């Protein structure tokens, strides 16, 4: 791995850091989901990412794409609810976008993140402003593409994506939800952060930390 590319170790580290941050924030995500959903988001993701850790130990993947496909299959079969298929699709599409590459440069990284986001949109049909994880992913992808176009390193691309995702998550606070369970609440969802946007920001921050740590 060089300054200008990320490798399988990064992908694995990303997942491990995601597992750690989700586990640490399990209760916080439950609380967010309790307010405008059914209170299981933290539990569901924690179950899924714990299972990923076990899989990473028992069948270490050989490429970034294989790493993300392992994550996708595990999330799909362990998480359930809305987040399982959505995160599952995100990681699956990212893996597919990365093909056989073992070194991920900034352009491929941005393309991978865009494919992940497009996968979530394809499954969930949410638009920006619907108060879903898309409100974190779309600004993250936009920032990643801009950074990559401007010649930034993969680590910088990830840092830009994470920061944008965090702002995007915060920006869901004043919204009415149009998708997912929070949409049943109408105006009562106002003032609450979308749990999926919050977890997406955490996971993208984990990607940046893995990128920075190994850069």
């Amino acid at each position, binding site marked *: 791995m060089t300054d200008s590319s990320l490798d399988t170790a990064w992908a694995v580290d990303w997942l491990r850091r995601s597992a750690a941050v989700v586990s640490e924030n399990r209760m916080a995500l439950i609380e967010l989901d309790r307010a405008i959903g059914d209170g299981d988001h933290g539990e569901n993701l924690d179950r899924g990412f714990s299972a990923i850790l076990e899989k990473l130990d028992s069948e270490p993947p050989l490429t970034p794409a294989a790493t993300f496909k392992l994550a996708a299959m595990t999330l799909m079969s362990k998480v*359930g609810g809305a987040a399982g298929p959505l995160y599952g699709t995100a990681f699956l599409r990212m893996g597919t976008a990365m093909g056989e590459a073992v070194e991920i440069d900034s352009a491929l990284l941005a393309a991978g993140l865009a494919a992940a986001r497009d996968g979530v949109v394809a499954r969930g049909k949410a638009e920006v402003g619907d108060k879903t994880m898309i409100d974190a992913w779309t600004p993250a992808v936009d920032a990643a593409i801009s950074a990559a176009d401007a010649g930034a390193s993969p680590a910088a691309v990830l840092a830009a994506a994470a920061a944008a995702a965090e702002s995007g998550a915060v920006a869901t606070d004043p919204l009415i939800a149009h998708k997912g369970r929070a*949409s*049943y609440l109408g105006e009562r969802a106002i003032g609450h952060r979308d749990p999926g946007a919050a977890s997406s920001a955490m996971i993208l921050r984990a990607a940046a930390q893995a990128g920075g740590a190994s850069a």
Partner: protein
Amino acid sequence: MKKLINDPKAVVDESVEGFGLAHADLVVVHTDPLFVTRKVAKAGKVGLLSGGGSGHEPLHAGYVGFGMLDAAVPGAVFTSPTPDAIIAASVAADSGAGVVHIVKNYTGDVLNFETAAEMAQADGIEVRTVLVNDDVAVEDSLYTAGRRGVGGTVLVEKIAGAAAERGDDLDAVAAIGQRVNDNVRTMGVALSACTVPHAGVPSFELAENEIEIGIGIHGEPGRHKIPMEDANGITDRLLEPILADLAPVTGDKVLLFVNGMGGTPASELYIVYRHAAKVLRDAGLVVERSLVGNYITALEMQGCSISVLRLDEEMTELWDAPVLAPALRWGM
């Protein structure tokens, strides 16, 4: 949180295991992935499968048996099951005539069942899906995830189950399930919240004199909070949007279903039933069939839902047809 459980993470596995032991004459519990099938399958029959988050017991596993479901797939508490379990259960429920998935309309359930259906179809199993969305508390618009599937689910499962049992083909079973869904409306109320084991705290807050109108079955908050009222007043509030939306005409025959959310005594459900029956009669309807009890719950939530199903002759006949499942049994 005080619950009769061991490890919060083992609640579903242990509960379904106990269910399987208690009803070993009727059902078989499969683990890894977890699903429940009918003990005695009937060859050549359309398979009927349902599933969803746990915490709504006896839904769905309690309805596995003769004249109702062939398989049920319980997810984690209030969390849709995953595609692998749905696929495995679909394979088990298929005897060549295809499988109907009865899915409650929640994003999670829809996405997981959609994925499973695609993959099962790819494996050569014909799948039809009936999406239940009977909850009039939710606006059905482009700007929501659409109406939720609640109490009507039990009625869809019973009536479609009877159709499958009498030998209807795949499309016919799906069609009658759809017809039940099209003719049923439900609205619920909560007097208290429930506590999801892994969360350990009640799913929403209610003051001592508040109730939550338009509640779903996942401990999610409802349409709005109002001050506590008496049973007749609450019943009026639940029936009003049901009747406005169903728009029945004088002389229509209906099934009246008063469902307990898990923590409400039967005596209170009958007090609600009493007034609801009177309101329907006063509206010129004929209450032909009734169901009162805990059939689709939200853990230990206090409250109830009322469902009104407009019956036609075929639905009534299928409703009356024998059923032999752990949680619904008549005629045999």
